[in-house]
């Protein structure tokens, strides 16, 4: 009896001490690490914004200021007032919106066919789409460039695609290779597969045509997946650099991303103006994302991975 009391008495407080404090300490360490990681992640953004408000002299100061002495809004005016900025904005918008709309339409159509229709060669086509997911797209830029250049009857080409410049330096050339992606088709197929078949069957009994069923019933149901596809397509075209760089040789066809690179590498580049431009280019995507965050974070991966 006294043995048990002796053993139990010192043990009890130790256990409760651990139970009470260890989870708290664990949580404090966890929070500390998370805050550190968040600061490390966000510092380049803060640095970008902070520099965009500095005076020329302040950008070369050593050691540098993290908080600018004054807010120089002129940097933003200088960035926007560049001779080609307006034109570059239009080019970026046409490219990004064209790519987004065509991706949403074509991937939804193809995804629906692969999810819901019976036809010869279905498995083969689906296997092809999945296989193309693995093809390294960026390493294909050379042949894609040559193909776009040789589209028959475009840009002074003859019917064999010789003689002219094809779709080089055109919006069509910019959008065409990005107008549908294996990922988009795959994602839409996964989504359509999960919509209950009853929706279609009742419409079919009413005599609706396949396209009407797709357009009037399934597409509205697929709104979350379409939002994800739209945001991802917009982001990837808006941020794309290599494809517009290779496709366009004329100054009037350059996009904002190319403009930023030219601004930065130019002979009289000013860090504060470059950072103002970088801030302006980054903002639209972040704003689109913040509005669609729910859809994108929950939907992008659920449709992509869970299958």
């Amino acid at each position, binding site marked *: 009896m006294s043995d048990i009391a002796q053993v139990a008495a010192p043990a009890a407080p130790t256990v409760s001490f651990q139970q009470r404090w260890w989870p708290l300490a*664990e949580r404090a360490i966890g929070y500390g690490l998370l805050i550190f*990681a*968040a600061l490390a*992640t*966000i*510092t*380049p*953004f803060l*640095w*970008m914004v902070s520099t965009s408000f500095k005076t020329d002299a302040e950008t*070369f*100061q*050593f*050691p*540098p200021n993290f908080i600018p002495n004054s807010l120089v809004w002129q940097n933003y005016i200088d960035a926007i007032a560049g001779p080609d900025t307006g034109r570059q904005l239009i080019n970026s918008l046409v490219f990004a919106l064209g790519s987004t709309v065509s991706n949403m339409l074509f*991937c939804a*159509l*193809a995804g629906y*066919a692969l999810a819901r*229709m*019976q*036809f010869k060669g279905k498995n083969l*086509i689906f296997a*092809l789409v999945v296989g*193309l997911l*693995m093809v*390294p797209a*960026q*390493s*294909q*830029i*050379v*042949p*894609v*460039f040559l*193909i776009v250049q040789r589209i028959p009857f475009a840009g002074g080409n003859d019917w064999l695609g010789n003689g002219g410049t094809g779709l080089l330096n055109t919006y069509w050339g910019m959008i065409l290779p990005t*107008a*549908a992606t294996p990922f988009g088709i795959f994602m839409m197929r996964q989504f359509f597969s999960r919509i209950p078949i009853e929706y279609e069957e009742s419409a079919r*009994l009413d*005599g609706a045509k396949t*396209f009407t069923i797709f357009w009037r019933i399934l597409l509205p149901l697929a709104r979350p997946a379409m939002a994800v596809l739209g945001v991802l397509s917009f982001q990837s075209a*808006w*941020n794309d*650099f*290599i494809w517009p760089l*290779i496709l366009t040789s004329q100054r009037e066809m350059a996009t904002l*991303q190319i403009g*930023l*690179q030219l601004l930065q590498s130019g002979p009289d580049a000013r860090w504060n103006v*470059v*950072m103002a431009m*970088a801030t302006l*280019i980054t903002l639209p*995507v972040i704003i689109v994302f*913040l509005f669609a*965050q729910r859809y994108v*974070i929950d939907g992008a*991966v*659920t449709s992509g*991975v869970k299958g």
Partner: protein
Amino acid sequence: MALQSSTALARRPQSFTQNWSAYAFLTPALIILFLSLLLPAAATVVMSLTDISFLRPTNFVWFDNYIKLVSDSRFRQAVGNTAYYTVGVTLPTMALGLLAAVALNGKLRGRIVFRTIFYLPVLTSLIAAAVVWMYVYEPYSGPINGTLTQLGLPPQPWLQSPNLAMTSLIVMAIWRDFGTAMIIYLAGLQDIPKDIYEAARLDGAKTKDIFFRITVPMLSNVTFYLMIILIVQTFQVFGAIYVMTNGGPLGSTETIVFQMYQTAFGYTEFGYAAAMSTVLFLAILLFSIIGTKIMRRGES
């Protein structure tokens, strides 16, 4: 009218009617995939067997380009650089993404804010990120060297030294990619049944054991998927190098795609560039297969 068409539908073999509209639904997407991926992939292989260029009429040279590649010391350096970059980016990105996902999966206060912050770099355009990091790495007025100096440590030539430049690019790539890994892992975590965790807790398992014995093995499919995405993506690194180092200093950041770009659009040697592209594709395939093998071994 409605009755008529529904009887017509019933009489006709249904798969036949659907057949034709399915092809109509698929055609636009398939034409684009054909022009942007399938034909280019095939064309790359064919072109790699020729000396196609703007400079002369095209001849078949068969495997000359590949033989030239084997003895090209610059290309061998690019292969080494690319492999170093791929491993250097992929492993830390997956580890950080997993840690962030596990930390932010629960009911932690402020998790949405953390998630958004970690995902911000993913949204940034490559060029904006590259330009900002060039200034972050700036040897004279950049914040890293500024902080180092204030702490009494020597400043470093982050992008100007052949020993440091590639590592500096890797750090930036991890910063840009780990948000993607986090999101994909978060989705994977939702699929792990909650009762497994409850049972383990009741048995008195420690946090560490739960992480290594339950979370990590249950996520192996997600890890595999993520690894493939990251390998394919990092193997093709180009934009950041084009903007930040232009392959230098002393070729220390020249990667396969960077050399391919220079060979094709600098020297218009499309055939030789196509051979590089084919080697890149095979390398990605090889890495993916090795990755799969390692994963399988880890599972058993």
